């Protein structure tokens, strides 16, 4: 099937198999930040933005992205580095394998929620699993990042 997708600002037209998952399509395009952690849509590692909204690219067909805009962490390097610095300062990346999906969802949350409470943050990110950190350092990083953002505003 022929699809036209904008990935990180660049338009691609490709012939793809109907069962190709968006995750594999994106990795094929060199977006190697997109990781697969499970086969059951449980871990959040493959989170990317489809038209600005976070989705799990492991459970979205590439053909569903036809005519849409996909953003991966490769396309949000500045934002990733900005929030990532807070994460790094807390040691909250550890192995880092879940970081890209987690950062993508944090950036989506930042756009979607105004002044989120701790409870709202936990709920928004509940689908992003991490086996290393125990999540505490991630929460500290998010709260410091949001506070800094607010200060700057």
């Amino acid at each position, binding site marked *: 099937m022929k699809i036209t997708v904008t990935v990180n600002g660049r338009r691609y037209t490709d012939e793809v198999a109907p069962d190709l998952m968006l995750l594999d399509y994106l990795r094929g395009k060199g977006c190697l930040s997109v990781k697969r952690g499970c086969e059951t849509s449980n871990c959040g590692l493959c989170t990317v933005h489809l038209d600005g909204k976070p989705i799990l690219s492991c459970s979205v067909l590439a053909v569903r992205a036809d005519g849409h805009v996909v953003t991966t962490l490769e396309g949000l390097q500045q934002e990733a*580095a900005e929030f990532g610095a807070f994460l*790094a300062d807390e040691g909250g990346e550890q192995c880092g394998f879940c970081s890209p999906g987690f950062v993508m969802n944090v950036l989506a949350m930042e756009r979607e929620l105004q002044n989120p409470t701790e409870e709202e943050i936990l709920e928004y990110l509940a689908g992003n699993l991490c086996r290393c950190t125990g999540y*505490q350092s991630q929460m500290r990083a998010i709260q410091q990042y949001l506070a800094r953002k607010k200060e700057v505003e």
Partner: protein
Amino acid sequence: MAYVNTRVRKKDAMALVTGKPVYTGDLVPQNALVVKLLRSPHANALVQEIDTSLAQKVPGVCCILTYQDAPQSRFTTAGQTYPEPSPYDRLILDRHLRCVGDPVAIVAAETQAAAQKALKLVKVKYQVLEPLLDFTKAKDHPILVHPEENFRSLCDVGTDPKRNLCSTELFEMGDVEEALSHCDVTVERTFHTKANNQAMMETFRTFTYLDEYGRLTVVSSTQVPFHCRRILSNALEIPKSQIRVIKPRIGGGFGAKQSVVSEIFPALVTMKTGRAAYIAYTRQESMTNGSPRHEMQMTVRVGADRDGNIQVIDLYALSNAGAYGDHGPTTIGLVGHKALSLYGKLQAARFNSEVVYTNTMGAGAYRGYGATQGIFAVEAAVNELAAKLGMDPCAIRERNMVCQGQTMPTYYGEPNNSCALDRCMARAKEMMDWEHKYPRRVLENGHIRSVGVAMAMQGSGISGVDIGSVEIRLNDDGFYTLLLGCTDMGTGCDTILAQMAADCLDCDLDQIAVRGVDTDQSPYDTGSYASSTTYVTGMAVVKACEKLREKILETGATLLNLPKEAVEFDGKRVFQPGIDRQVSLSEIGYASYEGHSRCLSASESHSSPVSPPPFMVGMAEIDLDPDTGKVQMVDYVAAVDCGTVINQNLARVQTEGGIVQGIGMCLFEDIQYSPQGRMCNDSFLQYKIPSRMDVGKIRVAFESSYEPTGPFGAKSIGELVINTPCPAILNAIYNATGLFFDTLPVRPQDIALGLLEKQG
């Protein structure tokens, strides 16, 4: 000290948080064959016939390998120092399949689709045998898991495959029965801990190729590159000189990758075809055929006088190795030695253990490595003893805990030179506000808030076995290269070892370029496991830096035409104190690169005759709903003595992460098998690891002792921190409900039904 004991950002942190392609799967050569495994549907079976002719015809299939194509030397996949205590009980492909998922055939194809299609077309006729699944019945069972004649055990660990025994051990101090008979109060209970998956986010994965010299190059997500080289040499029957192992960034290990799980399959394909080959385990494969924690059944008998002085502990542990004995004989040792040694006044102690083979997934190394299971059982029994004595569970520990300065007869007779367990207890009580919160209070909504406590210890490396080695070089312009053989798997050891080096050499952290691991280039290191890296490899860093400082002084003195004794080195220059004569490190670096017979480099190894235990106290506060039995974590307090904290951030995050894994083990995680021996809950949908909604607050404090044999006074941190949640949460559940549980995980239905039963 500029860097040690501070919150330094990990050197690779920004690359990781911005999603740079640094993991095995991101580096695969484009033409690599996709490797897939045909796995056994049966827990115990023999391959009678295997027909690959149809599968071979699938376009894009390059090769299909069966047991007839694989070498026939048995080996172990356990990453341990040679000679490995784990028996040589495995083949790459065996006609005898010993657990569901054992590999039957290796398929390599140009594409994933072709490989998967071919898998379905391999025709296998199995002789299905009755499986042995119940590990409590495995010893002397008529079904033998390893009847083969070429089974080998390199070490005397009490192995007897004709009795399904992987290993046995008996340790006894004093007369246990006599001591128990004199106790005023005794408790006896049998505990059951389950197999748990490490569930690291990056599943097992490896790619292999032949390099320009025709040598097998293995790029793998492994904790043990040097052991991997030896294991592949054993498995493939090729010389070690023909193998190079490279470790890129690792997406978590927790011990899972201390076994060579995925490496052997693409390696065999590359050796057979000359082509690059890549395997990435699916999450399901990682779940069903990884290297999980050993399931154990432990009977504890503990006795005290009426004042609460614990006199004796008797511990019997039965461990399920599963189909293969990886880490079986060694994990079991920690069950006893790390649990009994928490108590310093024992008149008598006994640890008796048996590790048995069954037709379930072969187990392996998981953070805590047996100590987690043993400490759970002993700490839970001590909590029951305290209840029987009417004592506060903290008070019984304050009375009996091991102290600094003691010799630990149950811990290989090692001295306890650094121990702040008493301060950890005081700090944890203060942080938790134990005096007010113990034992429980009932909230308006009927929920019960309660607290529970446990202590833990671990080791720091394997005494007299593990080796850490580093090489440090001074480069032109005066920066350093630190070559490491230990494996940073997200833990941050590349950074903390650089912190130590920077402090030893009085330089900026950015002046230390770190590189590891490539077995062709890195100095030999046993790898990152057994909580060894900070303590063992850290000491190698200190020694190497001392040696390099001497060389810098010598070269500087030569350049200044002064005797070495007349000059000093402050990290930036070699100079004569009081007189304006100096030569900069940059100049020394350049000079060492010009017309000298020696570059300035130092290489040192370190092995420790002791394994100083880090200690901690963990306290859990839970919210228990008596109607549903649901336990919600509210607060967890950890007071940790890991000696000097090298990196405050990373030690804290290690602690938080370990506690959450322990919470998972206590409340959720349980590898379950069907009656036929198939793992039922083989996905994240069914095998629940804690999400951020499940863990509550975790607060960590460090109460440091100073370990004289460790680098900068440091001990280990990585494994210790998983050990307290199971017993502490169980204690909180008891304090809420009056119910003692002995089987993990404790599920809401167990609590709800227990309460109903109690109410009659």
